[in-house]
């Protein structure tokens, strides 16, 4: 164990008087004006150093790992990949997913007749995605889900379907991260 204890160095006592007070103001101004001129210089050179992002005109790019709202993967034939096994429903700590399974004559014969996510309950934990054995529900990069009514926060299957081509980043992350 190479840890040791050190005492923090307390700064010398404050000296009073108008000269010292003026000095303190100048010290502060030096720091803030350095920031100001650096930002100004960045503005003149058109290489902004300002940290603020002017949302919604400017948007940040999210990393691959980003967990936005959960969506359903839509295969190339327009159908969902979900087989309504219900694992995401089990895993969800807040019970925000509702699934009613049904059957078809297709090759994948089970599908969800109803797949609702109550986005006012969802807490973006991503456990549904980790539980899914089919890569059918994934966390998208969509975070703009505000609604004007409570009813508007209930997302149905048709709203949740996103083509697989738009989810490549996340699927890559999952294949890398969740594989062991």
């Amino acid at each position, binding site marked *: 164990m190479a840890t040791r204890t050190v005492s923090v160095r307390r700064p010398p006592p404050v000296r009073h008087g108008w000269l010292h007070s003026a000095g303190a103001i100048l010290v502060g101004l030096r*720091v803030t004006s350095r920031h100001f001129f650096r930002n100004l210089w960045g503005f003149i050179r058109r290489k902004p150093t300002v940290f603020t992002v002017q949302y919604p005109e400017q948007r940040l790019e999210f990393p691959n790992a980003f967990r936005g709202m959960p969506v359903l993967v839509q295969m190339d034939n327009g159908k969902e990949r979900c087989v309504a096994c219900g694992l995401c429903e089990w895993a969800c700590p807040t019970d925000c997913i509702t699934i009613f399974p049904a059957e078809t004559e297709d090759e994948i014969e089970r599908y969800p007749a109803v797949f609702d996510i109550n986005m006012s309950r969802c807490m973006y934990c991503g456990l549904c995605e980790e539980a899914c054995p089919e*890569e059918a529900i994934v966390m998208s990069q969509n975070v703009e889900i505000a609604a004007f009514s409570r009813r508007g926060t209930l997302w149905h299957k048709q709203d949740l379907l996103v083509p697989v081509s738009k989810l490549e980043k996340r699927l890559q*992350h999952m294949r890398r991260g969740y594989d062991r």
Partner: protein
Amino acid sequence: MSDAILDRLQQRFPDDVLAVDTYRGDASASVRAERILDVARFLKDDPGLRFDMPIDVTAVDYIGQQPRFEIVYHLYSTTHHHRLRLKTRVPQDNATVPSVTPVWVGANWLERETWDMYGIRFTGHPDLRRIYLYEEFEGHPLRKDYPKEKRQPLIGPGSRRGASVGDEHPYAVDLPQTKVEGMLGSELMRVQLGPSHPATHGTVRIVADLDGETIVNADVQVGYLHRGFEKECESGFYYQAIPYTDRLNYSSAILCNTGYCLAVEKLFGIEAPPRCQFIRVIAGEIARMADHFLCVGATALELNAFTPFLYALQARELIWDLVDALCGGRVTSNYIRIGGVSADLPAGFADLARANIPKALAQLDDMERLLTENPIFRARMEGVGMLPASELIAYGVCGPLLRAAGVDLDLRRAQPYLVYDQVDFDVPLGSRGDNLDRYLVRVAELRQSARIIEQCLRMLPDGPVDSDDPAIRWPGKSRVFGRMEELIDQFKQVTEGCKPPPGEVYVGTESANGEIGYFLVSDGTGKPYKCRARTPSFSNTQPLAAMIKGRLLADLVPTFDMINMIGGECDR
């Protein structure tokens, strides 16, 4: 070591110690309820034991057993750095036990919480009010026979809304009208600060009686963010509690995740693979930096220094970019898993960390230039909020607050977990224990965290990040897609949860504000029978009233800020 403690206790109280036991390295002793005060006194005063810090008081409801309730005390010794779990049983029809507040003053709020949640009365307690819930609340919610869905008179349909909350209200406090030497002696004025106040970055209500501008007496009321963390954890599988632990301390969520997962792993008796442990340390220290930045920045803001706050938030944003790249969430990380982490470090993470952390530390330098030598900041911080170290320990205060008072207690050093024994870092200590020391300790810890991260990135070994035990960690996805056994494992794991063997463990880890500890009781099923979070904000907020008593009202703000109470963590 734990055997020596238990032997000593049994020798002294041969008739009152009913059972002793050591499980997974945790020493625990059951004693007779009526002798608990004598045992507590002995444990505190005996030179070989010196259990001077009350870590936690809680209860477990063994419904259907006789006696029904078990009250559990967790104790820590700051001199010997050992732990003890003290247990005592009380029946349902006479659920009373002597209060241990005469021995450890910090047991006060903890016992109030136990009364609130389990309905166990502590005789001799100075002020046994409910702490989280309101007085009209019917029942005690953590009892096993209290249904989760139950609605209360003041909420839900048909509630008695509009009940006025004034001074006549039952939970308006009755503060003692003491006169303090050297004060004006005028008529006291009552000031209600909070529960929502711009100068308190947390929902807390402080009722203060003022004589002039001096605080004569104060009552700190917490619970405005109570949302039943423990009840919620008990009703879900082990893995489902991990996102809830994010919401304890939402400025350093990964540290809360880590503590919980370590506790479940201890129940199983396993350790995560080495690479995983390094990743947990890296992630945890990143979270610690984010927390300290917020604390220092918000303190500056509430002392009217707006620029350092913006610098701090910018630095925290750089730190959060790392958390974001790591686990996809900035505040609610949900990163650590039982037996592993949710995903390995992303490609290029080390470069990103090496680029962002120096930038954040450069912001810290600027903040320090603005704050440390500034006469106004110093005047508000210096000599304010002090309590003697022994009193802080008796309150159960931990973390930077205690280290600022010169007590060398950092669990990363005192009881190393993960790979903290392999890295080189300093534990900064203060000398006077005032707010300035607390600020300086936090600033110094920020730099130490950066050091730890750099070392771990260099030492990071290759290998698996997750435990390969299918009974603990969910199987890898490609195998779930391709093979029947793993698919079945996945279904079993999700629908039944991992099932630790029956037993109880406590794990304390050093979070940004102090010791965050999880006390888990397993009954062998996939859901925790009891999941208790011992949180630093709760124990650190408790002495606030003592710290500000006799000081000016303006001193309340920096003291409260430096305590860094996080509502989610304090109120659970």
